[in-house]
């Protein structure tokens, strides 16, 4: 029995990315690094959205082995894209329900309530929601699939300070609702420290450092990058 996410992946293409990662169930890994380091590419490769070579295993499920991989839609992943990636033609409820295996409006409303969106907000389309509300819907949608792995791509990037704090708290709270291993991409160590148990520092498409200590150690490469 393999626990959590095991990852050894290489992606060619415009930006070559390679990574070896292990994330345990219930654990959150902060993927930190300068912009352009390939963090989003790595997330997309794990989710199966871009071609990659290597191994991705979640629990006992092998999503990718060598060049062979499951198509993205068969990987039970909860992905929060940059900006949310909500469907503009569906209201918040519809956005959550589209990701459910079996359509269940009550369960979807409960998820929206968990991210602090009420019934009125559930009936609004993305264009009628604020940036922070859109991210909440995206979080609820990611949970709706009952994912085996949660991937959050800069969920706090597009919102201002107070909203950001609330969202960070919400993401921390998601750990209660889902025990799936989580990778959260951020370039803000403060955010990362509030949520993550461990971290990986990515530069130029490679993980140069990883482990729980990276978050706290000012002498780590990450620490020096942040301070320098």
């Amino acid at each position, binding site marked *: 029995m393999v626990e959590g996410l095991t990852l050894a992946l290489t992606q060619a293409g415009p930006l070559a990315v390679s990574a070896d990662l292990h994330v345990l169930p219930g654990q959150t890994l902060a993927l930190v690094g300068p912009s352009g380091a390939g963090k989003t590419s790595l997330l*997309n490769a794990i989710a199966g*959205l871009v071609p990659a070579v290597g191994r991705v295993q979640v629990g006992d499920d092998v999503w990718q082995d060598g060049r062979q991989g499951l198509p993205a839609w068969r990987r039970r992943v909860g992905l929060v894209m940059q900006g949310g990636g909500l*469907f503009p033609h569906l209201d918040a409820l519809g956005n959550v329900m*589209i*990701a459910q295996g079996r359509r269940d409006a009550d369960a979807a409303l409960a998820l929206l309530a968990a991210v602090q969106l009420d019934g009125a907000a559930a009936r609004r389309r993305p264009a009628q929601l604020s940036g922070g509300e859109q991210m909440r819907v995206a979080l609820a949608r990611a949970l709706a699939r009952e994912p085996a792995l949660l991937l959050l791509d800069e969920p706090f990037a597009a919102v201002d300070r107070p909203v950001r704090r609330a969202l960070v708290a919400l993401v921390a709270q998601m750990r209660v609702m889902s025990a799936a291993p989580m990778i959260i991409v951020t370039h803000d160590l403060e955010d990362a420290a509030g949520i993550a148990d461990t971290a990986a520092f990515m530069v130029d498409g490679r993980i140069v450092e990883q482990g729980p200590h990276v978050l706290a150690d000012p002498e780590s490469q990450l620490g020096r990058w942040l301070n320098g």
Partner: protein
Amino acid sequence: MIDADLTALRLSLALAGATALMLLPVAVLLGHWLATTRWPGKPLLEALLLLPLLLPPTVVGLALLIAMGPDTPVGRAWAALTGGRLVFSFAGILLASVLINLPLAVQPAVQAFRGVGDDLRRAASSCGLSPSRAFARVDLPLAWPGLATGAVLAFAHTLGEFGVVLMVGGAIPGETATLSLTIYDRVQAFDMAGAVRLAVLLAGVSVTAVALLFLLGRKRG
């Protein structure tokens, strides 16, 4: 209004409606494929699809007249299938109409599917939607306004189309003598009153039909 007017009107509406209906699935499939494929031959294919707009109607009409003749492969296949003839029949002008309206229906569809964007397609597959479900629940509803625009353009253009139907139709009342052809014939026969009556009818029907289609498109979109 006289019977001949109504016959021509009914024929034109049937031709325009059938053209739009037949082009819709073609525009959906071809438009989606062109918007998402990375096939290197795509620019050439897109240019070829514009050909009916680039060539004068008489050239397209002559090519179709020759291609649909009873001794051509197309004509023979049609005869084997239906026992009838393609040239000088409703099916023949419908085929011609579908071909010349291809760019009007497909181009807006390509733009519409392109506008959906890779991000939303990725979001759809990361939500667990299979390609066919993603197509039905994300691509199609988002591209609908473009598809409706294409269908309306094809419908309107067919009502007013003249050159190609003149070349391949043979002006048979109730079969290939469309409204615009009938107007032209009346003018040539010095029947100005009849021509003007039909022209007003054509303008009124076209504007009404297209307005209704736009209304329908907006409600659905």
